[in-house]
Structures are given as C-alpha cells and as structure tokens.
C-alpha cells in the first residue's frame, strides 16, 4: 500500500485547501478514498452525523503534478483512510502561498498521512513544514459501506438562486423553525417555506430556469406548474450553505418526489421524497449535462427517514495545468445526502 502525491501549482493548492476547509466544516471525521484516478472524501455514517452523508470527488490529475498510488491489491486498487477533517484542513492552511505540497502515506509507529509543505523563503534555502495526520486504514470488508450513493432520476430539477441569498434566508428561517419545506416545479419556481404556530414564511424565487432533463422519459410528463415538495432539517441545510467555500457560479437542485424503492416500505409513514442539489461553476460554453451525479441511496435502517435530500456540488473550470496542454477542465463534485424529516 503506497500513496505519494505532489501539488506545485499555486491555484491548485489553493483550491485543494478550500475543498478541505469546506469538508472540515461539514464533518468532523471523514473517509479519504484514494484510487488511481480520483480522490474521494466520503462521509457515510449517518447515525453519527445526524443524517448527512457526503461524497466528494476530485479528479487527481486536476490537482496533482505527481501522483503515485498502489492499493491493497491489483484488483482492489484503492486505499481507504479514516481521518479527522479538521486536521487535514489545518495542515493545508499553512500551505497557502507555499511553493509545493507533498502528501504521503507513512507509518510512524502508526499510519499517518504526512503533509510536507515547502514554503517560499527570501533566501535560497528552502523551509519545509511537515504535518503528520494520524489515519486509520479501513479494511477491505468495510469498503462496501463507503460506495457512491445512487438515486433515480429526479422529478424536478432547477437552478438554485445565488447561494449567498439563500444562505441569509435560510439563516433567518432557522431562528424561527427547525424544518424547512422546499418546493420547486418545472417552470423555474422555487419556494422555501416554514410553518409554525406563530408564523408562516414563504420565500418565492422565480425564473430560475430548469436544466434540460438528463433522460428523455418520465420526468417531462409532469405538468410544469406542479410543485414537488420535500421537508428538510434547516440546520443541516444551513451547515452546507454556510460551509460551502468553492463559490460555484451556478447551482442545481433536484427534487425526487417519489423516487426511492424502499427495502421496507411498511416503515415509511409519509410518501417518500428526496431532493438533490448540484452545483457547477461554469466557465465552459457548453457544460456536459448534469446527469451522472444525481443519485440518492435508499436508507431504510433509520425509522424516521421518509426520503432524502441530496446536495451535489460540482465545480468545473478551464484550468491551465501544464505547458503544452492549453487547458484542462477541472471538475470536482461534492454530494451530500440528508435524511428528510
């Protein structure tokens, strides 16, 4: 089992730092999955994280100038590590304005992710800061709990308004209620709603636009005015809105009104519903359709779950990486799944 990688580009380094800072805000501990193509930050234990799971995917070649890894075996060429997200984020914070960053899997009495940061200095001598982040290697038999969640096609998908606006609204709504009702339809309308004994507050967004459907079938039969509705925990939604640091230029939200074939539908008292969020920063003229990442995993072990909210976070940027290669589309994706209330 080997892992060794290096970042030299200042912008890549900065972006990697932001992603890790965002993950640290969303989760205390997370799983880092290393495979030859991708780095994934995964949060799957819903009981411990109050119904939130996360899937963050980074294409390794968009960040690293050198990347070597060797999984536990040739057919299972991956490494799964448990780590405290805050430790990684803190280590990377010192890497701002650094000349280079190296990440290595080491064994110093216990397994560590060693982050070496080569800092700029006025003189020619280089200074190196090294952080050893303790990690736990996850055995092969537990990998199955850490796979990418999947959900069927959404009923309604809609572009989100500016996240800053949404954040301030949800922040105020949190003061009043714990539960948020989210409604959206195919005419570009999105409503955020809270209802308590004392007050009903509804924020209406319109003309948001709907992304073209991923698949040609079912979803288009829906009347454009018909709202799909989900209920979510405001604090969890706010945690995402407040924690997001990647500042996408565009965001997509997907609602799943009746999507999940529950393994034990008898437990479910409400009609199941789910909601997906996706975000993309668009620099490219015609981005690929947001099709592959709108998935929710059915969750039946939790008795109160009646569906899921999923936040997907995708950022793409044209990014000059190496001389000779004009630019590269950089793409990250962070998926958060929430239990609905």
């Amino acid at each position, binding site marked *: 089992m080997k892992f060794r990688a290096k970042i030299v580009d200042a912008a890549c380094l900065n972006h990697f730092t932001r992603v890790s800072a965002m993950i640290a805000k969303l989760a205390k501990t997370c799983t880092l999955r290393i495979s030859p193509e991708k780095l994934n930050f995964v949060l799957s234990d819903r009981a411990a994280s109050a119904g939130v799971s996360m899937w963050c995917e980074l294409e390794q070649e968009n960040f690293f100038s050198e990347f070597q890894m060797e999984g536990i075996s040739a057919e299972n060429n991956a490494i799964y590590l448990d780590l405290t997200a805050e430790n990684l984020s803190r280590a990377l914070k010192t890497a701002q304005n650094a000349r280079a960053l190296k990440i290595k899997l080491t064994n110093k009495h216990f397994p560590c992710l060693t982050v070496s940061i080569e800092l700029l200095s006025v003189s020619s001598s280089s200074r190196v800061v090294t952080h050893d982040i303790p990690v736990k290697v996850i055995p092969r038999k537990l990998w199955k709990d850490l796979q990418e969640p999947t959900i069927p096609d959404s009923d309604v998908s809609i572009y989100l*308004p500016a996240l800053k*606006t949404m954040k*301030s*609204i949800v922040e*105020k*709504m949190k*003061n*009043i209620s714990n539960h948020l009702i989210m409604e959206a339809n195919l005419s570009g309308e999105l409503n955020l709603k809270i209802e308590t*004994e*004392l*007050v*009903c*507050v*509804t*924020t*209406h*967004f*319109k*003309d948001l636009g709907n992304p073209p459907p991923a698949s040609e079938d079912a979803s288009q039969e829906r009347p454009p005015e018909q709202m799909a509705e989900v209920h979510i925990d405001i604090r969890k939604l706010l945690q995402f809105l407040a924690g997001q640091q990647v500042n996408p230029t565009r965001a997509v939200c997907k609602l799943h009104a009746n999507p999940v074939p529950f393994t034990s539908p008898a437990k479910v008292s409400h009609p199941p519903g789910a909601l997906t969020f996706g975000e993309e920063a668009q620099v490219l003229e015609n981005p690929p359709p947001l099709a592959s990442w709108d998935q929710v995993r059915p969750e039946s072990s939790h008795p109160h779950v009646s569906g899921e909210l999923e936040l997907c976070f995708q950022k793409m940027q044209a990014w000059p990486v190496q001389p000779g290669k004009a630019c590269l589309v950089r793409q990250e994706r962070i998926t958060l799944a929430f239990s609905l209330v």
Partner: protein
Amino acid sequence: MPLLTPQTQEDGDYSLVASLDNVRHLSTILKAIHFRDHATCFATKNGIKVTVENAKCVQANAFIQAGIFQEFIVQEESVTFRINLTILLDCLSIFGSSPMPGTLTALRMCYQGYGYPLMLFLEEGGVVTVCKINTQEPEETLDFDFCSTNVINKIILQSEGLREAFSELDMTSEVLQITMSPNKPYFRLSTFGNAGSSHLDYPKDSDLMESFQCNQTQVNRYKISLLKPSTKALVLSCKVSIRTDNRGFLSLQYMIRNEDGQICFVEYYCCPDEEVSESES
C-alpha cells in the same frame, strides 16, 4: 394559504397598509427596543408606535411616523395588536441584516384587523417573501404618567458621550445611580459593584452637553438590568434627552436618524428603585 400576490387584495379590505422602500428604516428602529419577545403595536394616521415592557418597571416606545412610509393607510381611528417582535424582526431581515450596497428590500405590510395575521410582503431583487405572523390579544400597556410639567431636571447630550459609559457599565452593580444637580457634580453616573464604586461625571460646559436645565439636586437609583437594554437605542441615536420628574421617574429619549436623514424617536421610561426612598427615610 398565504397570499401570493398582494395586488389581488383590495387595499380597502385592510385596516392598516404600509409600504416602505427600505425595510431597514423600520427594522433598525424596532431592534432598538427589542429586549423582550413581545411588543404591542398602535397605528394611527400619524404613524406606528411599538411598545415593549418589562417587569412593569420599564417601557420602551418606538415611534415611526407615517412620513417614513411611502404609503400609509389606517382605515380606523387606531389599530392595536400584539405581536412577537423577535419573529417580526427575523421576518423583516429575512434577506439579511446587512444587505449589499445598492440593494434595498422593499416592504408592504398589511393587517386586516382583529383576529387576522399581520402580512408582510418583502421584495429584494425580484425575490418575494411572504410572511404571515399571527397577532395576539393586545395587552394594556403601562401609563407612566410622565408629564413635561413635572420634569425637574433635563439634560440633552450627544449620544457618543453616553455610549461608552453605557457599554462599560459595571454589571455587577445592581443599580445605576443618576445624580442631576444645578451644582457640582452636575451630572453623575454611579455604580456600586463587586470591584468597588465608580462615578462618571459630565461637566456642565462639556462639548457633548447640548442643553443643561437642572433645577434641583436629584439622586435616583435604577435597576441596571432594566436600563442596560436601552444601550441598543443609544448606539443608533445621535442625541439623547435625559429627564427626571418629581417622582424620580426617568425618561430617556433617543433621536435616531436613518440612512435617508429622516428622524425617528425611541423613548425609554423607567421607575426608580425603591430602596433609595427606604434608605433615605
């Protein structure tokens, strides 16, 4: 179901309709009296008065004149209701407390009458928020019977003179003692806390002193916990008028100038602490 479009309802159906281009003109003033959850609102054709009380000893009134609003219609002689001020403020600032420069949140406020909720329609950048806040049975508010003819001492200060003093009040002291006198020390604030007593004197000829009309030496104590909330109004204000009457009742009037230069007033009344009279007798 909340009303999606305010236009569908005739204005005549409402006993109170008020529109405002910049909601902050209202929310800032209301924040200045927000030390309890509930407030009583009185609307007449002159404007709205919002009253908050605590412990039957302190009362804060915010006056928002009709002129502040772009549209202000009251169908009845007066409209009164009680409302949860915390929720009202959360609703008014739903688009953020400190908006980006250049963006204003517009407000339209409608109240149909006794038993109906207060409707708020807020709009910023094409996004509309509709709030339906349930109103409550109005409660009788205290009458402090503070008459200007009974006023003994009156001082008008620039607020900055009092701001620091109030923000640094020794909160371990139970009372704030206010001395107003035609002779030295003229105007003194005293606290008696765990770490000792402190006295803060304002000379009569200080630049901060806009007006000084003291006829008789008065030493009164007020519960510091009741006066402290007035700091919120003090911070926003440009001038403060401090008056005491023959019973030792205190009136603090704050003049607050909003972003457009319009002036609103917030007023605090407070009863003196009874211990003073006991120890003096």
